[in-house]
C-alpha cells in the first residue's frame, strides 16, 4: 500500500492533469522514433519525474513499469566502495549519481559505458535504444558532467539520456546544448485544486474548498508536498472537523523560531542561543543552505523595508562561502552576527559608515 503521492501518480501522458501542451509534445516526440536526449528541469514537486516515467511508458509500453531495484558497488580510484542504488527495467535504468558524492564521475563513466556499449536485446522492444535517467543532475560534479558529454554523442544509437534537475544553472553548457530542454513549471493553484479534487473523488470523500485552498497556499507550488500534507491532514482528522491547521514541516517552524530570536534581541547571549538552535537543525540533517534561506526569508519578512536588501545580500554572500567551506556553523553564525549588527545599527540609528 502506498501513499497517495504514489497511488495517484499519473501513469500515462494522457492522465496528466496539467501542462497539456507539454504532454502533447512529449507524446509526439515519443511517436516520432527520433527521440533526443532530454533535460527536464523545474522546481521541486512540479512533476518532472512523473512526466519522465509517463514518457517512458509512452515509448516502451507497460514493460517499463516492471522495475527491479538493486545496488551496485563501484570502486573509487582510492579503492573505496561506493554503493549506488539502481532502478531498472528492461528498457531503462535510473540512477542518482550524487549518492556517490565526490566520486559520481566513476559511476557515470562505468555504468553509462557499460549500458551504452550493448544494444537493446529484447526483440519485442518498441525502440532500438535504451534510456538512462539521471536524477539530481544539477548536483553532478564538473568531472562527471564532462564524462557525460562525450558519451552522449558517441553512443547515441544505443542510448538516450534523460536528465532531471531543479535548475540548469549548475549544468555545463555543452550538456545543455546536447539536450532538448523541457521546463516543467510548478502547477498553478487552479491546477492543484483540480488534482486534490481528483484525489478526494477517488477516495470518495468531500474536500472543502477552503481547506484545499489552505493546503495549496502553504505548499508553494509543490504538488508533492501538497498531497503529503493532504494525506497527513486526512489521517489526523478523518472527517475534516474541528480547527484544522496545515502542518508545516517541523524544521521550518524551528527555522522561523530562530529568525524570531534574531529579531527580538541582539546580544552575545542570543548569539549563543541561536547557535544552539543551528546545531539542532544541522543535526537533523537539514541542509545548511536551506536553513540559511528559510531563516533569511523569515527575517526579511519581519524587518523594516530598508534593511531587506542588506540582509539578503549578506545571506547570499554567506551561502556562497558556506558552499565553499567545511564548517557550516561558522558561516551561519557569521550571517547571524551580521544581521544583528545591521539591525542594531538601524534601530539605534547609528552611522554605519564608520564601521566598514
Amino acid at each position, binding site marked *: 500500500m502506498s501513499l497517495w503521492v504514489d497511488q495517484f501518480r499519473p501513469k500515462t501522458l494522457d492522465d496528466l492533469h496539467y501542462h497539456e501542451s507539454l504532454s502533447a509534445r512529449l507524446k509526439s516526440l515519443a511517436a516520432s522514433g527520433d527521440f533526443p536526449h532530454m533535460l527536464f528541469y523545474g522546481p*521541486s514537486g512540479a512533476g518532472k519525474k512523473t512526466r519522465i516515467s509517463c514518457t517512458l511508458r509512452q515509448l516502451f509500453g507497460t514493460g517499463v513499469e516492471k522495475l527491479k531495484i538493486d545496488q551496485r558497488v563501484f570502486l573509487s580510484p582510492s579503492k573505496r566502495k561506493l554503493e549506488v542504488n539502481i532502478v531498472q527495467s528492461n528498457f531503462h535504468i535510473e540512477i542518482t549519481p550524487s549518492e556517490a558524492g565526490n566520486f559520481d564521475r566513476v559511476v557515470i563513466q562505468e555504468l553509462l559505458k557499460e549500458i551504452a556499449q550493448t544494444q537493446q536485446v529484447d526483440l519485442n522492444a518498441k525502440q532500438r535504444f535504451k534510456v538512462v535517467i539521471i536524477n539530481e543532475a544539477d548536483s553532478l560534479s564538473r568531472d562527471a558532467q564532462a564524462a557525460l558529454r562525450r558519451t552522449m554523442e558517441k553512443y547515441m544509437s544505443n542510448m538516450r539520456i534523460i536528465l532531471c534537475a531543479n535548475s540548469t544553472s549548475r549544468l555545463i553548457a555543452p550538456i545543455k546544448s546536447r539536450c532538448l530542454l523541457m521546463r516543467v513549471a510548478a502547477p498553478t493553484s487552479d491546477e492543484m485544486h483540480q488534482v486534490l479534487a481528483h484525489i478526494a473523488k477517488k477516495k470518495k470523500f468531500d474536500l472543502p474548498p477552503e481547506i484545499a485552498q489552505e493546503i495549496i497556499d502553504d505548499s508553494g507550488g509543490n504538488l508533492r*508536498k501538497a498531497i503529503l500534507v493532504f494525506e497527513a491532514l486526512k489521517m489526523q482528522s478523518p472527517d475534516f472537523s474541528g480547527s484544522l491547521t496545515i502542518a508545516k*514541516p517541523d524544521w521550518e517552524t524551528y527555522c522561523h523560531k530562530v529568525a524570531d530570536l534574531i529579531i527580538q534581541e541582539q546580544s*552575545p*547571549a542570543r548569539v549563543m542561543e541561536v547557535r544552539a538552535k543551528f546545531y539542532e537543525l544541522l543535526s537533523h540533517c537539514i541542509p545548511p543552505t536551506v536553513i540559511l534561506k528559510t531563516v533569511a526569508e523569515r527575517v526579511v519578512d519581519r524587518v523594516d523595508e530598508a534593511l531587506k536588501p542588506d540582509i539578503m545580500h549578506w545571506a547570499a554572500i554567506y551561502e556562497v562561502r558556506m558552499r565553499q567551506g567545511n564548517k557550516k*556553523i561558522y558561516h551561519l553564525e557569521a550571517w547571524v552576527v551580521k544581521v544583528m549588527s545591521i539591525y542594531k545599527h538601524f534601530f539605534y540609528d547609528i552611522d554605519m559608515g564608520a564601521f566598514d
Partner: protein
Amino acid sequence: MATTESFTANGLLGSLLPASSKVLLPPTGGSEFASNGLLGGPSAMIDVSCGRKSPTLDIQTVSHGPGVDDMPVDDERDRLEGHDSSSSTNASDRFTTGGLPSESQDFPEVSELFRQHPSKKVPSVADSLHSDAHFHRTSSLRATTFDGKTIYMKRKTRIEGLRNTSGTSGHRMGNLLDIPIHRLMDELSAATAAKLAHPGPQPQPVTSTGASLPPTEDTLWVDRYRPHRFTELLGNDRVAREMIAWVKQWDFCVFGKKKGKKRPRDDDENYNPDDEYHRPREKLLLLSGPPGLGKTTMAHVIAQQAGYEVMEINASDARSAQVIDDRIRPALEAGSAVGSSKPVLVIIDEIDGATGGGDNSSGFVHRLVQLTYDKPKGRPGQKRDQKDKRPLLRPIICICNDQNAHSLSKLRQYARQIRFTRPADIHIVKRLKEVCEKEGLKADSRALSTLVGVARGDLRGCLNALQFIKARSGEVTETIMRAATAGMKEADSSTISVLNNMFAPMTRKRVKELGMGEEEESKYVGRLSREIESLNNPSTIAAGCFAHYPNLRQHDATFSRYEKANEWLTTFDSFSATMYSDGDFGLHAYLSYLVVPFYPLFQERGGQRIERDQADWENFQLTKTNEEIYKSLSHGLRHASSRLSGAYRHLVGSQILTLEFAPYINRIISPPLRPVNSQVVRPEERELLSQLVNIMVALELRFVQEKAEDGQLIYRLDPPIDVFVTYDGKRASDIAISRYAVRHLVAAEIDAATIARQADVVEKNQGGKLDMFSKTSKMSAKYDSATKTKPGNSSEPASKRPRKDPTDIADKPPVDFFGRLITVPSASSTKAAARKNVEKKYRVTYRYTEGTSAAVRKPVKVGAFM
C-alpha cells in the same frame, strides 16, 4: 645457647661472636625495626631487602641506626658499600656499652628509641645480628634470652614470607603509613642535626645517592640526582600519599595481608567489598601532569617502596594489544618478575601515545581496559581452560602528560586519576641550589628562580639547563640563564593552554619570567602564531575560539568585534576547505595567522577559563546518528518500492526525504485512534487503522516493545523516525502523542500484516518466475492490470497478486472475519498456497542471471541448459 649456635652457623660474623654471646638480646627490637619501614626513610626498605639475601648486609642495615657517633647518619649507601668491618666493630663496641634497656617484656618502638635514647639502639643491632643468624638456618626460630626466657621471633618468619610474595612485606608497608608525618619530620631533622654535628666530607646529604658516586661528567645530572627514596621526592606530598595509598590498597590482594586492625580510612570509598580479591575498585592508576615533574621517578620510587618489582613499558616499546597479551599478562599472572622474589608492578609510561583509544577494539588502551575487568571463569571444581582469562591481581600504573588525550578517553573511567601539579618554586630552587653546590656551580637564588620560572617547574629541564651552563662556566647569573634558556620558552602547549593564551594576555609574572620588555610584550602575532603552529592543528583552535568568544564578558554594543571575528573565522574555513579539497597544503602556513586576530579582539585579563567545548562534537555525533536513521528509512523506502513496483522511489531523493517526507510521514502514521479492543473498533476507524498498518508495513516501520528506565513498558518506533519531528526534545505540537494502548493495537496489527506479507513474498516470487516464461506482451498485459488495481475495487478475480488481499479484506465489513484480523493473512496465505499448488506444481524454474544490466538479461528456459 641458641644464639651462639646461630652465630657460628653464620660464619661471617666472627668478630661479633664474643659480644653477642656475652649479651643476649631480646629479639623484638629487631622485629620492630623491620616492621617500622620508614625508619630513616626508605633506606630501611632497601636495606631490608638486601638483608634478605645475606646476613652480612643485614648487619649494615642495622648499623646505620645507631650511627650517631662517628658515621654520618644519612650515608647508608656508604655503609652498604662495604663498611662491613667498621659497622661490625661499631656494633660490638656498643654491645658492651649500651646495656639492655629493652628486655624481653618491654618492646619499645624503634622509632621512639631513635628519638629519645639514641644510645639505646645498640640492642637492636645485636639483636638483628642474632636473629639473622637464626634466619639463616630456620624459618621459625626460638631464642632464649639471658634470663632464660624463650622468645619466638616473628620477624624471621615474615622475611621468609616475603620470599614467596605472599609474605608480610605488606605489613611493613602498612605500618609505613601509620607513622605520622611529624614523626618522620622529626627523624629527618634529627638526621640533619646529626649531620651538622659531624660535618662529613660530603655535606649535602639530600641527594645522597649522588654523593657516593664520583662526579663523572658522562652522566646526566638528571640521572645523578634522581631521587631513590620516598623522602627524597620533591613536591606534592598529597599526590605522593594518594598514590601510595592506592598502591597499598592492593596489599591484601598481592601480599595476602588482612586489612585487620587498620581503621577504615576515608579514602576507602575506593574499596570494593564485592571483589573477592579485595582489589581496589579502580584497578588502574592514571598519573598525569606536565613533563619534568618526576612522575616516572615517583612511580618507580613508590613501587619500590611498597615492595614491588617494577616492569616498565614506555614509548620505546611497541605498544599494541599484542604486547598486553604477550608481555604484560604473563608478567602479571606469574606474579613476579623472573629471578626476583618481589611481586611485579607494571608501569606504563607515556600511555597517551599508545594506540587504540578510540573505537579501535584492537588498540592497546582498549585491551588494557579489558584486562581490568577480566573475571575468573572456571569454578573451583571445573577444570580450568588454558585460554581462560585470569583476573588482574597486580597493580598497574599508567603515566601520561595529557589527561584529556583522546586516546585515553576509554581508560579514564576505569582508572583512578591523580593529577601531578608543579611543586612550589621555592622547593625546586632549593633543590637546584643543593645540586649546584654539590657540583661546584655558583648560583644565586635569583638566577635559579628565573630558571624555574622559564621552565615552568620542569625540574628535568632545569637540571639539564644547569648542566649545560656548567659545561661552559662555573657560575650562574641571571643573564647567563636568560641566554641559556632562550629555547625553553615555548616548551609545552596543549589546545587548552593555547586557547587560554589567545583570550588572555600574558600574566605579569610570566612576562617577567621571560624577561620581556613592554614592546616585546605587546607583540603578539609572532608569539601566538608560533604557538598555534606548534600544535599543528589550527582547526581545533579555530573551533575553540568559535566556541568561546561569545562567552566573554566584554561589552560589544555595535557587534563590530563579533563581525570581525566571524569574518576571520569564515576566511579561515575557506582557506582550510580549499586546502583539503584541492590538496593545496601550501596554505597551511597561513592558517595559524587567521586565528591570531582573536587576541586583539577579545583578549581580557582574568576572563573566564576556557573549557573544552563539546557542542561541536556532540552535534557531529548526533548528525551521524540521524544520518543512520535516514539511511534505514530510505532503505525501507527502497524495499517498499521494489515490492510495490517503484511506488516510493521518488521520495528517496536526499532533500525530499529530509525536508518533505520525514516531517509528513510522522503525521501520516499518527492518526487519532482510540485505544479500544480491536474487536470493537468502528468501521471508519478500522479503515484508518488498516491504512496506517499498510503504510507502516510497506515502509518497514515497527513498534518495538521496550522497557523504559522506570520499568514501564513502552512502544518505540523503529527506525526512530520520530526524531525528525522532535526539536529541542519536544515533539511537534500538532502530532498527537500515541498512547501505549494504541501503539499496542497497531503493533499487533503490524505483526499480523508482516506475516501476511512474508507469505506474499513467496507468492510474488512464484509469480515473478512465471513471467520469465510468458511472452512480453502477456507480461505487460498482466502488469497493466496489476497496476490498474486500486484498493477501492476489491473484486478483481484475475489479480494474481494476493498482496492486495489484506487491504481488500480490511475494507470489507469486519463481520466476515469475526473481527479477527489475524485470521486474514493466514486465510490469504493458505488460499495463495492452495492456488500455487493447483496451478504451478509442475513448473520447475531456474533463474539464470547473466550479467547485471537489464539490457542483456533475458528469460531462459531450463531446457536450454539440458
